[in-house]
């Protein structure tokens, strides 16, 4: 194959693009954290009481699940670098299963609140006052936006898994795997702050 038949490739540019996108994601959630801080500052008692109603157990469990999934996708890059395709695929599979487990927990958690008529626009919630409406509004929006990111991350990792199977992502060219990992770690990073703010600081 002659030199100009080579496909142009620039891994550093690829990663730079991914990081720039991650910066915008950080700013998106950063804006929501500003809103959270102000509303918490203005409604300290309501936020304190409402946060006490969330299950610390489910929150902690989901934190451990997400941290573990971050470790497994990070290890899949190592496996790829060591040319171990089977282990790469196994670790990606575990990451996806852990991501699904996170969403299943979220489903039960949200389901529990909704059965108690606590959801945006609910008249039962409205009766509890402005602070509770704001707390649960932010809770549903921020954890919901985060869950949407989990879903997108799962699809992203799903595509990468197929690419690994077809050797389109291989030990010579695995920047896509690294980028999907970066996205997944960002989702983890955001949860690291969401968890204490909604579940722990009561």
């Amino acid at each position: 194959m002659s030199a100009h038949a080579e496909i142009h490739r620039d891994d550093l540019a690829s990663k730079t693009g991914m990081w720039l996108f991650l910066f915008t994601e950080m700013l998106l959630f950063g804006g929501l954290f500003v809103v959270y801080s102000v509303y918490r500052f203005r409604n300290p008692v309501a936020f304190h009481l409402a946060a006490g109603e969330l299950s610390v157990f489910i929150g902690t469990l989901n934190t451990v699940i997400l941290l573990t999934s971050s470790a497994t996708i990070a290890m899949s890059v190592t496996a790829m670098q060591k040319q171990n395709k089977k282990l790469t695929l196994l670790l990606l599979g575990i990451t996806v299963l852990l991501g699904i487990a996170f969403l299943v927990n979220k489903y039960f958690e949200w389901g529990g609140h909704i059965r108690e008529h606590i959801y945006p626009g609910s008249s039962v919630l409205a009766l509890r006052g402005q602070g509770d409406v704001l707390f649960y509004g932010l809770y549903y929006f921020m954890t919901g936006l985060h869950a949407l990111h989990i879903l997108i991350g799962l699809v992203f990792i799903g595509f990468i898994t197929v690419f690994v199977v077809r050797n389109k992502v291989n030990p010579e060219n695995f920047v896509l795997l690294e980028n999907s990992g970066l996205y997944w770690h960002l989702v983890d990073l955001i949860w690291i702050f969401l968890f204490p703010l909604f579940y722990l600081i009561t």
Partner: protein
Amino acid sequence: MESLGNEKNHIIPYRTFLYVLAGLIALTLTSVTLTQISLGTLTVAMALLIAAIKSFFVLRIFMHLKFEKRMFSIGVTAVALLISAVIIITLLDYLYR
């Protein structure tokens, strides 16, 4: 194929990731335990400090920042400072209004 910036990356051993994971889980449990014991206003600071330590490890090790070009770390620091600055300035505004 030798071209721009596609050099073989630094390989992080599996063990390193497992150690970091163990540390992150330990910090999570510490944070849960400490916030259950009410420390008053310290609770918020404590929980956020632990979250900051956790994110440091996720960024440095899981996200490879330790082994990447400095510009990525500088970018992350800039974004973190910007968000903190906006939160602090906004809260100061509400505090002294």
